[in-house]
């Protein structure tokens, strides 16, 4: 049943070539991965009601079929302190091309990682773990493995990052919950193996990890052409 729902999401996104964030998060949640509490809405009053419920500060992100890289289009605002500011941001994002609404979601603290996947011609699905955020391609602190991941692969991936001390807790800062991260990598690996024919590449970026959770804060799923 879950798999059918996931397949349905892929099917609906097929023509666009990529899965928009609300659907992507729904899909990852179905696959057993942790996602933030969020609401996708085109109604500002509803957005504010939800934000009140999950408590400020909140995050707001634009949802538009024309915007793949939201940060580049000023489509992401973090740390929104209250209803008034959220209302203003809603209005500003309303001007972005293709605006369908916004995502309002809980703010999360922790280390930003990227978990990714690409279909490789010679090896099939390949999984990436690295330090995430917008500077991924500058630091390139990443490690790659062929899927499906075995448990020892997830351990060696964490060990191989230059930023490994940050994951373990560095100079008084708390590390990440290694078991949650492992669980998430394994769930992602199963998902990837099951839908390798449908997907071309995936960026889960950032995945925010702290001592208790590993949460996929944003996801970009590019679909295969066929």
């Amino acid at each position, binding site marked *: 049943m879950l798999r059918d729902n996931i397949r349905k999401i892929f099917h609906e996104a097929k023509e666009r070539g990529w899965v928009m964030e609300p659907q992507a998060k729904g899909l990852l949640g179905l696959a057993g991965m942790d996602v933030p509490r969020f609401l996708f809405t085109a109604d500002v009053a509803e957005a504010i009601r939800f934000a009140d419920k999950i408590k400020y500060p909140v995050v707001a992100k634009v949802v538009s079929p024309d915007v793949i890289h939201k940060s580049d289009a000023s489509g992401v605002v973090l740390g929104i302190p209250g209803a008034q500011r959220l209302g203003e941001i809603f209005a500003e994002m309303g001007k972005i091309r293709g605006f369908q609404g916004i995502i309002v979601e809980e703010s999360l603290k922790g280390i930003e990682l990227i978990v990714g996947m*690409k279909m490789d011609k010679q090896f099939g699905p390949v999984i990436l773990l690295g330090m995430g955020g917008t500077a991924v391609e500058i630091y390139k602190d990443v490690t*790659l493995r062929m899927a499906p991941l075995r448990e020892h692969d997830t351990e060696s991936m964490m060990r191989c990052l230059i930023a490994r001390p940050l994951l373990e807790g560095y100079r008084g800062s708390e590390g990440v919950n290694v078991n949650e991260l492992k669980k998430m990598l394994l769930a992602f690996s199963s998902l990837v193996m099951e839908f390798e024919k449908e997907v071309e590449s995936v960026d889960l970026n950032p995945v925010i990890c702290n001592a208790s959770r590993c949460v996929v804060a944003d996801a970009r799923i590019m679909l295969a052409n066929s």
Partner: protein
Amino acid sequence: MNLKRLFKPDTMAVVGVSLSNESNPANVVYNKNRLRYPIKVFAVNGKGGTIRGETVYRKLQDIPVKIDLVIIGTKAEIVPSIISDCIEADAGGAVIISGGFAETGSTDLQNYLVSIAKKSDFPFIGPNCLGIFAPGHMDTFFIPGERLVIPDRGKVAMVSQSGGILVDHMVKSAAEGVGVSLAVSIGNKAMIKELDMLRYFKDDPETDVITFYLEGFDEDEGRAFVVAASEIGKPVIVLKSGKTPGGITAVKSHTASIAGDYEVFSSIMAQYGVVEATDEFEMVAFAEALTCYQTTIEGRVAIITGSGGHGALATDTCYAHGLSVPVLSPSAQAELHSVVSPTIREISSFTNPIDLTGSAVDDDFMEVVRSVSRNDDIECIIVLLLPYLPHVTMDLGAKLSLLYQQEGKPIVAYVPHVDKYRMLVEGFMLNKIPVADSIEDAVHMVEAMRRYKSC
């Protein structure tokens, strides 16, 4: 697909032997196998006739004995019909030297060839290849024998997409004393691919280590290759070309942008314990080390030398390659202090690297290697032997090798490879201790034992 008759044939037919042109590739193959190898060889040419008194058969089916291996060096267009003849004559396999297939755009002709062979499960190597070199048994390379540098018979199997690179690796292996079990140039690998070779060598008692020169895999072939390589129980070494991206393609995700073809290749090889050599020298060093030692280590090395400078350089090189040279425990150091000659006791350094100074004698090296061999903190020993030290004899290689046989801890030696020190080098090599001709190479050899180099 049974490859036994293809790789270990008793009889060979060479199709395309010219009656008038001795420099024809088929003639080169026919002549060298007739004159130099114990295999029975027959010539085939559609016109028939004789060559130096021997019958030239019009077709394969006319040969009075059953043919194991057929070498095909004719024009590309008639190769499919010869493959049909092979199948009709119940041959064991073929090497198709001829070019003019996928490499020149004639993909249809190549596919047709494969479809004929597949129907009858008939194995062939190539097309567009040099084929098979089996030391002391046969050689299908169309290179005159006197131009080849022939390595000794040994335990390393070599597979290469490129014939030229294969010949070059044979030259380097011969120079380093690395023996070869079988060398195969698979060319366009239309039928027999790397994966088939892996499966064959898994059960080949003459092969302990398999090396591959790879240009690329076909779709999903890489996945099957690493999985098979991790399951055959013998070390697999790869050298890959085409590491630089051919062109920039627009990619929409960070993952696709960062995970370039080579990064993916290299990471996955390490993930599955396939040893990746970064150049041909490393490849030969890795092969030499892994034929001697098939154990996997994490990388804790002891360095024993008579020259502090060599010890320091080797230590730096170890760390640069992700190996460690841990300081020995006080008790281990005290033991070394007690086993060496009184003359060097106070001037040596026992921390690791262990410097026994220019005054050390053979017995000092022996006792220190023995003691370190029994130290569980150390997994492998690099002995930097400088034969110009006045008290070191040429017997030390053989003596240390014997010590390895007793103690079982891997030793890698460095001795400058010059004629003057040949006996020392051979003392190691003949007794299965790998000897490098540079410090860097010695470290490479140790690195080869640390198979799972994922970061």
